[in-house]
């Protein structure tokens, strides 16, 4: 009897607590932020990339049908535009855009490309060819030699195979681009509805993607160029190579990527992560973290612009400018990967394990 009385007291308390449950209140409206980011940043970026990829395909077909100095120049121009447009979507590793990042695995494997062209038999989907396709492969095919020699290669000897390879690589890019653009348009509402910050939530995935991109800018785009970054093989140090090394687009690509990242972070003109961070009063060295990150984006972009020429050339003439850029990118990466993720309670690089 006594126990029963106590149980009923517990039950009453529980009911009372449930009764005075607060309304969905002043917590930050993630759904609104996600809707804005999808509508005004991610979907337009995918549409632009898709359009640029179709243009690339058109110019590539035109070039293959009639290789000439002029059609080569037009193709190169379309390549530069498409590569920059790609930089605006590389960040997103969501279901609809899976595989997009495979379009930019560098350094490209020139031996594999040459062997593919020579044999004429290959499967671009195969893991073996991950470094033999995408933008780095075209970078090699169109820019590794002077224009005359390049043009000649598409006219004599194995020209048919070479044209076919170029066509296949370009088709792969345009297919991935249009598939992702269509899929994202449909995915938008699902994306906005996946609130929270857990694994699988849109905020959780975006923060991971932003951290990935910032790290890639620091490490691979600039660190590789400076020879700062490398790998260890049988105890020796080897540097990695530069992005877009043949077309000398590395500086332009970095800036394109940073601008897109900033747009994502700020949600363009609407609600973004800066507003989210402001709503939880996150601080960084006594100032709001939200503005500290925006400022750091601007500093990094300014430092990138301050490098007068492409990174490949800047290494010899303007190394200090490159080093400054590297330091600012490091600061930015730390802020995004450490401070922002921690303040939002997002786990970076989640792996399935117990904690305590």
């Amino acid at each position, binding site marked *: 009897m006594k*126990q029963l009385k*106590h149980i009923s007291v*517990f039950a009453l308390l529980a009911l009372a607590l*449930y009764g005075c*449950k*607060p*309304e*969905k*209140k*002043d*917590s930050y409206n993630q759904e609104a932020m996600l809707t804005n980011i999808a509508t005004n940043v991610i979907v337009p970026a995918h549409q632009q990339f898709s359009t640029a990829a179709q243009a690339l395909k058109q110019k590539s077909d035109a070039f293959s049908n009639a290789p000439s100095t002029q059609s080569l120049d037009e193709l190169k121009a379309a390549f530069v535009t498409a590569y920059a447009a790609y930089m605006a979507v590389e960040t997103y590793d969501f279901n609809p855009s899976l595989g997009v990042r495979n379009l930019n695995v560098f350094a490209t494997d020139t031996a594999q490309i040459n062997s593919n062209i020579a044999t004429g038999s290959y499967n671009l989907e195969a893991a073996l060819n991950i470094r033999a396709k995408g933008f780095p492969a075209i970078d090699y095919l169109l820019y590794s030699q002077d224009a005359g020699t390049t043009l000649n290669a598409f006219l004599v000897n194995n020209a048919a195979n070479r044209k076919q390879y170029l066509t296949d690589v370009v088709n792969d890019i345009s297919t991935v681009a249009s598939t992702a653009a269509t899929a994202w348009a449909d995915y938008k509402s699902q994306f906005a509805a996946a*609130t*929270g*910050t*857990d694994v699988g939530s849109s905020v959780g995935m975006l923060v991971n993607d932003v951290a990935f991109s910032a790290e890639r800018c620091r*490490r691979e785009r600039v*660190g590789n160029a400076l*020879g*700062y*970054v*490398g*790998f*260890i093989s*049988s*105890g*020796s*140090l*080897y*540097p990695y190579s530069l992005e877009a090394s043949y077309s000398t687009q590395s500086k332009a690509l970095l800036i394109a990527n940073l601008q897109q990242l900033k747009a994502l972070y700020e949600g363009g003109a609407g609600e973004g992560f800066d507003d989210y961070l402001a709503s*939880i009063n*996150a*601080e*960084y*060295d006594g100032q709001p973290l939200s503005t500290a990150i925006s400022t750091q984006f601007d500093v990094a972009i300014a430092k990138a612009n301050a490098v007068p020429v492409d990174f490949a050339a800047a290494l010899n003439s303007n190394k200090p400018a490159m080093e400054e850029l590297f330091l600012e990118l*490091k600061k930015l*990466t*730390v*802020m995004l*990967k*450490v*401070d922002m*993720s*921690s*303040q*939002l*309670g997002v786990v*970076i*690089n989640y*792996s*399935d*394990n*117990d*904690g*305590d």
Partner: protein
Amino acid sequence: MLQIQKNTTWLGKLSAQTSIAPLVVFRIAFGIMMFAATLRFVSKGWVDTLFVQPSYFFTFYGFEWIKPLSANGMYTVFGIMMLCSILIATGLLYRVAAIVFFLLFTYVELIDKTNYLNHYYFISIMAGILCLLPANKAFSLDVKLGLAKTVTTVPTWAIFALQLQMAMVYFFAGISKINPDWLLNAMPLRIWLPAKADVPIIGAWLTEQWVAYAFCWIGMLFDVFVAFFLFNKRTVWYAYAVVVVFHVLTAILFPGIGMFPFIMIVCATIFLPAVFHERLIGISATASASSATTKASWLSQATLTLLVLHFSIQAVLPFRYMLYPGKLFYTEQGYRFSWRVMLMEKVGYTIFNVRDAATGKSVEVNNRQFLSLQQEKQMSTQPDMILQFAQHLKEVCGKEMQNPEVYAEAYVTINGRSSRLLIDPKVNLAAEQDGFANKKWILAQADK
């Protein structure tokens, strides 16, 4: 004289006979739970990801000789652990099973610091204590098959040892929560709770700041005091109800802590009255328990000495951090093995540079070339692991280079503070040594 008399009554109380039932129920529950936990571990594929795939392991200082076995070997270890947990539950070949389980479980935990969890440490200790207790002397296959004599009573200390260990876990977890971050800033719950706004019914409250504060204070009070109420016969049932509610709540809010809440709910039954346990397994011993003290054999004397030694170490271990300068949350010198749970939202990011002293050439390492995601994440926030990895890089590069230098730039944020450098990036970690001495290259030492 008075002193001695007091001691004898205290000792007398502990060696007085009491019902074996709580110990037997504990044995069965522990065995079943360990079977489930081991099965879960294997089925999640963690044997593979944690012990087979990595090429490098962060061993504990002094236990560098502990190495993982091959894939088949590791699965066999887990298989034997499952078998032993069944033997423990059924009480067949109990002593052997308990000892083998304890040794294997502890071996697995010692392979890699990355996987350190307080509740794994807790299981190791409980299994270790069970090795010393006659938990198979009733309601067991050993008794049924005549491998052990039935008894209905055991010395009180046999039960008390398990209770005391539980109590220490709660109490030390509680006093570790008495720190400014937890009580005054509601950190890290202020970051973690709002992330759970989607949880049904209670979710809507979790974005409220006062709720984070309430959780922090209630959590602290619960941990510090619950054991006292569990020890008290008049309050034990209420205290146990609170234990259940508390741990179920943590299980809902923090699914990432895995089996821990359930382990505590099950283990806390050791505090429940003996009659309850007797009814469960259908034996009656309360009558014969009375005050009859049996003469302690040399074996039980030795056991008792071992337990006293164990608990003495347990009582001081959580305070060893005081021997080190600097902020504990940053340095983590003396952080493990102290029941500090859920105290930190700590995120780190560490960049390693290897420099060839002969040529001056230096490159930034890709940590993932050597470490799993989980290893890299754990390493990035813990200075001793950063040093270990630096030493590993030195070893790898030492094959070709005469004098490899290793530098680490580690950025860390704790409980919402701005990220800062954790260790001195100018110190060549290849030339430093691990040990219990203070690591002078950890920054955040001066400003205590």
